[in-house]
């Protein structure tokens, strides 16, 4: 990986001093040019992974992380892209394999990819109202109508939150004295009136 060539060509790219592989922060406006440069001039020909992340204490709240692999020099490189206004340019024109990864990041976090050919939900069904991997979405889920309206009309069923049965138990980090191990997500413990 020729880091000097990358930073010389794109001065706004910030080196994150990655421990396991070279890592850079790239602004959304530079992303396509950087990925193209890495693909055509530095042989990073395979998009290994693209995923959304909700960062802790960072603005913007969401970001996209790309991992590119060079099958020639056998190296990885990581790119962090902040999602300003929840938007990131789509790299699916350069790496068609990004198509589904971007759909997943949209589905799970609500990050919009500008220039994506077909930005639909992929794992959840069309019309699902939430983005489940956001930190404010509870682990058990939220009640939503069944995707099949005709079935719901007959049975009156809905998609219910999962019965957590009290788990998974884990201490909240820090010191043991701070409390008994309990579930990180406590929303399921609230008593609901019997219907």
């Amino acid at each position: 990986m020729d880091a000097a060539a990358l930073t010389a060509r794109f001065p706004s790219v910030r080196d994150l001093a990655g421990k396991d592989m070279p890592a850079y922060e790239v602004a959304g406006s530079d992303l396509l040019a950087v990925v193209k440069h890495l693909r055509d001039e530095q042989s990073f020909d395979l998009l290994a992974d693209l995923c959304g992340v909700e960062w802790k204490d960072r603005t913007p709240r969401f970001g996209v992380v790309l991992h590119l692999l060079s099958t020639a020099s056998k190296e990885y490189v990581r790119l962090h892209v902040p999602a300003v206004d929840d938007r990131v340019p789509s790299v699916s024109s350069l790496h068609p394999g990004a198509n589904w990864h971007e759909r997943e990041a949209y589905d799970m976090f609500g990050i919009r990819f500008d220039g994506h050919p077909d930005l639909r939900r992929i794992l959840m069904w069309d019309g699902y109202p939430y983005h489940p991997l956001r930190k404010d979405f509870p682990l058990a889920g939220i009640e939503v109508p069944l995707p099949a309206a005709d079935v719901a009309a007959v049975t009156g069923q809905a998609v219910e939150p999962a019965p957590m049965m009290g788990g998974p138990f884990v201490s909240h980090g820090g010191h043991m004295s701070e409390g008994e191990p309990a579930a990180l997500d406590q929303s399921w413990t609230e008593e609901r009136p019997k219907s």
Partner: protein
Amino acid sequence: MKITKEISIGDVAARAEELRGENMTLNMGPSHPATHGVLRLSLELDGDKVVKCDPVIGYLHRGDEKIAENMTYNQFVPYTDRLDYLAPLANNVAYAIAVERLAGVKVPERCEAIRVVCCEMARISSHLLGLGVYAMDTGAWTVFMYTFNERERLYTLFEELTGARFTTSYTRVGGVTRDLPEGWLAKVDAFCDGVLRTVDEVDRLLTRNGIFLERTEGVAPISKELALAYGLTGANLRASGVPFDLRKDKPYSGYERYDFDVAVGTKGDCFDRYLVRMEELRQSVRILRQAVRGMPGGAWYAEDAKKIFLPPKAKVLTRMEELIQNFMLVTEGPQVPPGEVYFEAENPKGALGFYVVSHGGGVPWRLRIRGPSFVALSILPAVVPGNYLTDIASVLGSLDFVMGECDR
């Protein structure tokens, strides 16, 4: 006789547009034997030819990434069993190595060798099933019986090693749950002889089988460029002629110590993908033999990683220090420093990647799972159109995917 109208082929050809039938939309799956799980293909057909293929996935989505954020690193190990549920041991190992890289833990050589044995046995198990059902999809029922027989033997070995036949949950961050049972390696060695006989048998049944060749040769070729553009990995990438294998090119868990060859295809059609997997089986046996015969002694977990790996049970029950350590580890999880890591392992289905973001403590902040099957299926809209409906079974069988890992 008076000729009223002369009809020729040319007239009919000129009316091609007018004579054209409507395209049909066909739903294949989510419960269809050739889709190997709950995959739905929304197909547009012109007669027997596929015009458009839109895979609909998510029927097996369980939110593994969300679940991971709510539990300690070791609590998540059983969930990794359920990614590629045909090779749970390989998933366990990939996950453990990813977290260890983040924690900066180095496991001893014996542990690495045990994990290599696990990975290669998992590969054999996965490929045997993959080839069996691939052959069944293309009309050869017998092969499945041969390969399943061999898998049964493998599961008996898994059970002896891990206590479970299917959901092994064998690794922990910093080691494995227990050392190898006595006499187990000799059984693995004996198994190697048997599986090679079965592979030869399958070879003779399929490789020059006229029906199998008709169904697979030249069907749905994936060029080198297309494979790279879609990020295919594993056997599917190598069948397209890209000699990339993480075990060779980014060695982990001591793979650099073993002598083996990487099988590479030329055309990238369904038949090449079959050939690559057949060769991988033989190479896996080769690695397995080396690992079994040269199994190093010594510790089987990282003994110095006190904040990562549970202390030995005997000490927990007799000593105060170890008791506290055990209690802290179980309730708070292995203490991993803040940072991020991306690790990919060469799994049977391709590169299984884990991207872990930690803010310290025993629970990951974000755990992303990059499933090779998800990527392999994303290429279908580019590969399937232009083929016949009947070829879909060959294409799906040859890509060897598993929905647990695709939907996560």
